């Protein structure tokens, strides 16, 4: 009885799928790879820029190949016609951004925040020097050479 019931259900759905057309193709269709783009080459200047922006070094042959492969992989969608199609930034586009009341509900957890830092000092994170005025840099170099002379 049970078995019969299940097979009849499957039959029913097969019939349904024949009667109503669906946009999902029944068998795999190759659409993305119908254009063979030439193998992409990235010049050394672009690599230097990308390295600076991403803080990731890929300047050996293998690294560059991975990068070029990644670009070729992504390029496959370039032939798709997107004229007059508004870009979709988020699938929640039609939702309203939810807002929170102005209340203090987090923080006060200094130990947790500093827990993962390798180097701290007086509860500060310690980082390499960043964006500082040029003259300060020069001053430092002057001071350093002064100090060296003193030694």
């Amino acid at each position, binding site marked *: 009885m049970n078995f019969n019931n299940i097979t009849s259900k499957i039959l029913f759905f097969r019939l349904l799928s024949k009667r109503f057309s669906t946009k999902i193709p029944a068998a795999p269709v190759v659409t993305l790879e119908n254009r063979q783009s030439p193998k992409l080459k990235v010049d050394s200047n672009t690599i230097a*820029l990308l390295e*600076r*922006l991403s*803080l990731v070094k890929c300047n050996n042959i293998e690294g560059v190949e991975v990068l070029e492969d990644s670009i070729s992989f992504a390029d496959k969608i370039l032939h798709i016609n997107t004229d007059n199609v508004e870009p979709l*930034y*988020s699938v*929640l*586009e039609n*939702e*309203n*951004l*939810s*807002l*929170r*009341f*102005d*209340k*203090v*509900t*987090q*923080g*006060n*957890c*200094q130990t*947790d*925040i*500093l827990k993962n830092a390798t180097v701290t*000092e*007086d*509860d*500060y*994170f*310690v*980082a*390499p*020097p*960043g*964006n*500082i*005025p*040029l*003259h*300060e*840099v020069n*001053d*430092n170099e002057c001071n350093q050479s002064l100090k060296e002379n003193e030694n």
Partner: protein
Amino acid sequence: MKYIGVTNQLKKCTKVINIKRDHSTATNKNLQSVVGLEVHAQLNTKSKLFSGAQNTFGGLVNNCVSLFDAAIPGTLPVLNRKCVELGILTALALSCKVNEVSSFDRKHYFYADLPAGYQITQQRAPLAIDGVINFQVFTPGVHKKPYNKSSKIKQIQLEQDSGKSLHDSDLKRSLVDLNRAGAPLIELVFEPDLEDGEEAAALVKELVLIVQRLGACTGRMEEGALRVDANVSLRRYGEPLSTRTEIKNIGSIRGVAAAIRHEIERQRSLLEYGGKIINETRSWDAVNKVTVAMRDKEVVQDYRYMPEPNLPPLRVNLRTREETQDVLSVPLIKDRIPELPEDSRRKLIEQFSLRPEVAIQLVNEPVLLHYFLELTNQNTRNPTKVANLLLNDLLTVLNKRKVDVEDCVITIRQIRELTDMLLNKQINLEICRKVLDELLDSANDTSPLDIITKKGWSIVTDEEEIIKHCTEVIENNPKLVKQYKEGKVKVFKALLGILAKNTSNKVDMSIAAAKMEEMLKK
């Protein structure tokens, strides 16, 4: 032969120099300075823009930080409703058009005090666009008369603040405090509508007054609650904008005026000697009064803006007064706009017949304006005299002691009593100033009258006593009296001067003058 050759060369040199000079003076006159501002104002909220950590100044280091602010993986932003409200309130006060839908973007740069590697800001669709700020330019000592100026606002956007770095130059490292990371900011982008530092300073002052009235921002520039970036360039009149430099993070109103003035001068002299302006970021050194080049964050400025995938669009209701938890009503916010500085100035000029420069100075100091309104609300005191007392005498006493007007401890009751005594001629101006000085030291709400009695400063109006003093002066200065009796009326003033000195300014001079004249005529 050699000698001639040298002189010829010298001649050539002088010629070249001359040509250069002519050229430079010509360019100098034809160059117009163009200034545009970008202002970051910290919003006055309890919690941060996207996290529930406390938004405060001067907390325990790295304590007002949530996991989201430290960019711990797996945390997500949730927008603070109050920030949207304050942003819209400010936008409306500056006649901006509020966008029905706005959205958030990521702006990337690598910096130790930006843990996520990007800042959430609004680039494609900001909270509001197309506003204007109207203000008066009047710096006593620079301008003889105030003039109107206005600057268009390109956009107002919500964004996160970064953490704070302390640069330890000896050990070549930065110390990072994330308490400010994720604090709510509005950035106001102004069009390059200004011409010099004084106009820029006046704009910033007006903006500070507006955000303070709205309660959107404390406006305390010394705490970094309001920071100014200035774009400065020079161009020939009528020509398109030329290469600009950007002065970052100017932290005071006078700093804005000085930094821009110096940058304009620097560019002018650079062009004069045939130099070229390069597009760079400079910082203002308030101690040495120079702008200095900064090492750029990245050689190629590529912020790689991208839509923030974790935040759906922000929608507001522009039409009706209905609102929900997630959709704020703009008309409801508009109802809450208080009287703005511009209206206050107009009111002072129309209602109290004050001169424009007096009205500007009063409105620029909210504490003094409060005193003024309290002193004049019963229509019993002369507004011009009250304003003069506040702007000349009280301000002088405060400046002398280097006390900020906002920290003035004098109460309304005290200033009312003192003003009445002055206006009723119970005391003179000099004593009034002394009392003001005393009031700043004295305990809470001490009566000015008590101080005057205690110090023996009260004015003598008793005729008998005045006559006594006059007799003394006449007896001790027979020479002057003789001159006066011979027709030299001028010496009368000298006699009064001696009287004032003898009595340490404590007699009522109008009575004294009358008595003295009477006695001399005898």
